């Protein structure tokens, strides 16, 4: 069933802030097989001019995971999570994410379209620091694969 395009522009309330921890950065970097010392070692990060451990370029997915669930599990949108695949992803880093950041996610539905029986929904998430600075803007295209019709 196609998603109602009236959901375009729907904006969810900002989430509780996500605290970026050093161990989470280390754990996430390890899960990506990273070996660059600036993810693990404070001195190495500081040598690059950063205030604390720097997060890998895709770390925003961790900080926005809960926020994205607002859309995925929105009963009015009624997406079938087991049929949802990730179509596209785009990160705009206004500055890197560092350990010690407190980040709030504000999620909105950027676009909705249907093609070949699949629904495609682009979710936009803006990550702000507690000081109100825009740190990252993340766009995720979710594809809800259509159920094959029996004719």
């Amino acid at each position, binding site marked *: 069933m196609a998603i109602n395009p009236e959901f375009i522009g729907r904006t969810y309330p900002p989430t509780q802030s996500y605290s970026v921890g050093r161990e*989470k950065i280390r*754990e*996430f970097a*390890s*899960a*990506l*097989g*990273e070996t*660059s*010392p*600036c*993810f693990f070692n404070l001195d*190495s990060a500081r*040598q*690059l001019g*950063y205030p604390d451990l*720097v997060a*890998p*370029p*895709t770390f925003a*997915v*961790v900080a926005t*995971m*809960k926020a994205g669930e607002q859309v995925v599990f929105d009963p009015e949108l009624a997406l079938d*999570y*087991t*049929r*949802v*695949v*990730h*179509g*596209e*992803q*785009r*990160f*705009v*880093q206004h500055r*890197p994410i560092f350990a010690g950041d407190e980040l709030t996610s504000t999620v909105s539905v950027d676009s909705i379209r249907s093609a070949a029986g699949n629904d495609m929904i682009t979710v936009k998430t803006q990550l702000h620091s507690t000081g109100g600075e825009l740190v990252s803007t993340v*766009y995720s295209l979710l594809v809800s*694969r259509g159920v094959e019709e029996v004719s």
Partner: protein
Amino acid sequence: MTTVSFSQVHVGLELPPQEFVFTRADLIRYAGASGDFNVIHWSERVAKEVGLPSVIAHGMLTMGTVIRVVTDWLGDPGKVLEYSARFTRPIPVPDTSEGATIKVSAKVSELLENNQAVIAISAIHNDVTVLAKTVATVQLEP
């Protein structure tokens, strides 16, 4: 750790290619680290029920891994200003010790103002492109 200066790069410059391997253990580890516990990334039963060939790698595991070709070259992962990818084909990860191998290459596709460059990344698994339109904009040194 050295960083790359703008004067050193030109359109067409190839970055050192790398190969990455995903096993089931890598998928479990990424699920835990990222918080993405979608069943299709760890249950063969559910993956097949929804029409997938097998458990598949998280698109974000692939995307997060292949950018290492750029950040290892840059020497500073904080200099990635934009990064986007389209997940064109799933990567089935068999329950074997060999897992699935992804071959990644990248080259400079465009030079921008303010010492920025656009890097186009190619990710191939079993001769098939698994990520399309995979592009990173990076900040280089003057």
